[in-house]
Structure formats: structure tokens, C-alpha cells
């Protein structure tokens, strides 16, 4: 079991309070996922020549200031580092490949969680309330978000095994369910040159979609290929720079419920996470059909 939440704010006036609106959604999914939580937040974009790199250190005493100084000194480039506990967002105009190589060489203990112009990722072990408090989720501002509460069933409870996973810039995925062919998928994808960071089954689904999109599929075609290749149960919620997308496995084994309102679109595993959204009584609440792709654009 796991919980998923997604929120896309259509009314620009409400975007400064997206964090506050989301909090009861995430907390509402605590029983479905008490061991870890994560959030991908899509904010206002950084300058067009820059990118944000979400970094995770594993320890809260990590010296982020030193990392910023080292980065600027070694690479002779401007960078900002905004730390939050054991996470930090590094913003720079350097190419991702250069940044990745530098991090690997000088700070191999760091995990790179995401790259993009809009998306920040925070994920860690603990109850959803603890993780949200640690990274101040309630003060997030932005256009849309994808969140997850995890109850691990098939791999270890570590920050790296928590969701969301990413498969490209400003692209993330969370999963409720389990895949029985994750290991064979992984063997197949590794031969295609796709790298894995964990043995998590969700990561296999994520890398599968990454591979299909690398081969030229759009998301819909990639997900259709997924119906054939992914063996197991899944509700997948994905976030891109301009949209949220949802799909359920053909047997509808894992739940999802949607509330469409003039001001927002909210998605969760269960209604109890949507119950406290403003004016929910006037939202169109429905259950998505299995094997159908739902997309909401900003």
C-alpha cells in the first residue's frame, strides 16, 4: 500500500498557498504510507539559461556552504545553494553533464534527486507529517505538485527508495502498487544503457518510461507500451513542467480519485485526502477508469 497525491492550481491567486492546500492531502495518506514521504514541487522557473539540481546528503550536518564555494571555485561559475536540512537546491547555468561529473568526483556521497528549471524534489524516511515539517512543505509556492506516502513492500526503507522518481528534466513519477517483473525489466533496460540507482520496482517503471521516451515515444505511447510490459498493479501519477498525468493498471487494482474544480485539480488515492480542499462540494469528483490516461494542463 502507498498513497499518492497531486494538486494542480488553475487559479493564479491560489498558487502561493499550494503548500498549505496540499498538507491535509499528504497527511490524509499517512495510514496508506507511514514509512517515507516525498514531494515534487513545480515552482516558478529559474532563468532560461539555468537549471536547479535537487541534492540529498543523507546527513543534516552536511556543509552546503562549502559545496557552493567549491563549485564556484573549481568551475569558475556562479551558483546558488539553498539548503533545507539534508536537502539543497543548487542553481547554476552549467550543463547537467558537467554538474553531474563534478558532483560524482568531488561529492560522491551526494544523491542527485532531480534536474530541471521548475521542479524541486524532497524525499525522506519518516511519517508524512515529519517529512513535511522537516522540509517545510506547507510554505511551498508553485503551480503543481506530485506527492507520495510510502509503505514499503518490496525493497528497503531508505530516502533513495522513497518516491518521487525522475526520468528526465522536470519529469517525475510516483507509484501506488507493486510490479512483479521489476528485476527482468531492469536487466532488459540496463542492456539499453539505462542506469538504475536503486532496486525499487517503481524505479523500473520510471526507467521503462524514460527508455520509451528516449526512443521517441510520447508519454501516451510509452504508457501504452507499459500496459504490455509492466506486470503488476499500479496507479502512476506523473508530473511534467506543464501538466499532471494519471494512469491505472487494466485491472484497477490500486485506487485513485479525482476532484476537478474551477480553481484546481486534485488527485489522491482516497477521498479522505480531498475532503478538506476549499469548496470541494462543488468539485466534480470521480474515479478514473483503468487503462485510461488522464492529463491535466496548467
Amino acid at each position, binding site marked *: 500500500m502507498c498513497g499518492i497525491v497531486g494538486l494542480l492550481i488553475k487559479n493564479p491567486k491560489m498558487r502561493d498557498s499550494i503548500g498549505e492546500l496540499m498538507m491535509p492531502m499528504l497527511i490524509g495518506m499517512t495510514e496508506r504510507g507511514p514509512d517515507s514521504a516525498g514531494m515534487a514541487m513545480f515552482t516558478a522557473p529559474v532563468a532560461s539559461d539555468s537549471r536547479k539540481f535537487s541534492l540529498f546528503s543523507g546527513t543534516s550536518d552536511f556543509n552546503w556552504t562549502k559545496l557552493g564555494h567549491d563549485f564556484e571555485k573549481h568551475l569558475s561559475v556562479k551558483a546558488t545553494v539553498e539548503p533545507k536540512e539534508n536537502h539543497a537546491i543548487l542553481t547554476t547555468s552549467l550543463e547537467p553533464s558537467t554538474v553531474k561529473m563534478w558532483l560524482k568526483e568531488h561529492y560522491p556521497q551526494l544523491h542527485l534527486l532531480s534536474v530541471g528549471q521548475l521542479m524541486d524534489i524532497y524525499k525522506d524516511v519518516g511519517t508524512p507529517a515529519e517529512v513535511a515539517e522537516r522540509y517545510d512543505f506547507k510554505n511551498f509556492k508553485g503551480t503543481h505538485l506530485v506527492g507520495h506516502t510510502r509503505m514499503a513492500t518490496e525493497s528497503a526503507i531508505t530516502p533513495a527508495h522513497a518516491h518521487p522518481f525522475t526520468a528526465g528534466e522536470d519529469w517525475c513519477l510516483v507509484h501506488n502498487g507493486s510490479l512483479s517483473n521489476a528485476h527482468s525489466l531492469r536487466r532488459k533496460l540496463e542492456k539499453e544503457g539505462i542506469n538504475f540507482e536503486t532496486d525499487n520496482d517503481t524505479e523500473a517503471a520510471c526507467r521503462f518510461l524514460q527508455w520509451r521516451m528516449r526512443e521517441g515515444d510520447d508519454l501516451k505511447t510509452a504508457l501504452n507500451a507499459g500496459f504490455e510490459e509492466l506486470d503488476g498493479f499500479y496507479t502512476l501519477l506523473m508530473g511534467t513542467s506543464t501538466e499532471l498525468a494519471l494512469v491505472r493498471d487494466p485491472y484497477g487494482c490500486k485506487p485513485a480519485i479525482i476532484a476537478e474544480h474551477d480553481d484546481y485539480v486534485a488527485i489522491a488515492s*482516497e477521498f479522505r485526502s480531498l475532503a478538506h480542499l476549499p469548496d470541494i462540494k462543488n468539485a466534480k469528483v470521480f474515479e478514473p477508469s483503468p487503462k485510461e490516461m488522464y492529463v491535466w494542463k496548467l
Partner: protein
Amino acid sequence: METLKFDLDAKPLREINQFLHGDASTLNGKKVVIENPNGAHSVAVGLKADVDVTIKGHTGYYAAGMNQLAKVTIEGSAGSGVAENMMSGVVHVKGFASNAAGATANGGLLIIDGDAGLRTGIAMKGVDIVVGGSVGSFSAFMAQAGNFVILGDAGEGLGDSIYEAKLFVRGKVKSLGADCEEKTMNAEDKQILADLLKKSGHADVSPDSFKQYGSARTLYHFHVDNAGAY
């Protein structure tokens, strides 16, 4: 009739359910309203008195499960397993119902005004189910007894491995499951259907607009010609 109001925002669910599990003689004929269910699980489960319960909103999993005698009305939608294993009474969902509505239910009447999800009426054992909208795939899987009326469409594999039970569908059936076949509706069947339509607020719908499905009874006993299917 005396009406008692409970607010789930103010009172824990367990206290409300325990009240509803009280002595039948104190509950019979009473009217109970539960406000702010907000998707909570297991609201009004295990009732066994002739009490009228109205839930003012959406419920989570297993609402009105194992119901006996009570009439439970959910004014919103219901999560998975609404009225599962109901024995008697009436459960009425005014919105839609998620997966496995009325699963294994032995008796009583389950009315869903909107659509119902996958596996509706799975292993039903005598309940009557009326769905105003459409039902998802694998509905009435291994159905054993009872009547199932679908005013809309049915998904894939309707009535797969059905033992008995009468299925009435007004719309399209995407596909029938193994050993489920179309039947000829006789006068007795038509009466059952007409009565259920009337009881569930669809008296204006003609029984003649339905097709009936049921068991071909070829899976009752092992047959060597079917060995390949196992």
C-alpha cells in the same frame, strides 16, 4: 421519528459505530444522521438493527459492510467494498461506488445511483443489486445467487465463472466471462426485474429494455474436454 445527529469531525468513528451496535430494541425505528464522513473508512459497518442511517457525504472503504436490517443511505459516493457481505436491509449510494461493491453479500438490497467500479457483486450470494449507471470489468465474478440489475453498460468479463444469479443489463456488455451466457427472460424473471426497478427508484424504466444473462452451467463439474482451460 427521533433523529440523532453525529458529526464525524467532532466524534471518533468508533464511538458512532459502537452506538449503532447498541441493543436493537433501543435503536429500532430510530433515524441517525452522520455528518462530515469526509471519506472515512468503515462508517456504519456491522449494523444489526432496524435503524435508518443517513451519511451526509462521501465514505471511504467498507461503508455499511455486513449490514443487517438497517437502511443506510450514503448521500455522496462510496469507496471500495460498500455493503460487502450484507445480510439484509438496504444500502443506497446516491453517488458512485468504487470497486467490489456488494462483494459476497448474502441478502438485502444495494442501490447505487451512479456508476460502480470493477468487480461489483463479486461472489454475490443472494443480494439484490441495482446500479443506475455502468459497472466496471469482472462484475458478478463467481456470482452464486441473487439478482443484479445494471441500467448502463457492463465492462469486460461480466459474470465470469458464474454459478447462479440473474444478471439484467440494459446497456452494452463489453464481454461475457467464462460460462456466462445470454438467457431468455421468462415471466418470473421479468417480475423480479420490474420489482427491483420499482424498489430502486427506476419504476419508469421498462423491463423489456434489458437483456438477461446467467450461468451456462458447463463449469459445474470437471469435464475432460475443458482440461486445457485449467
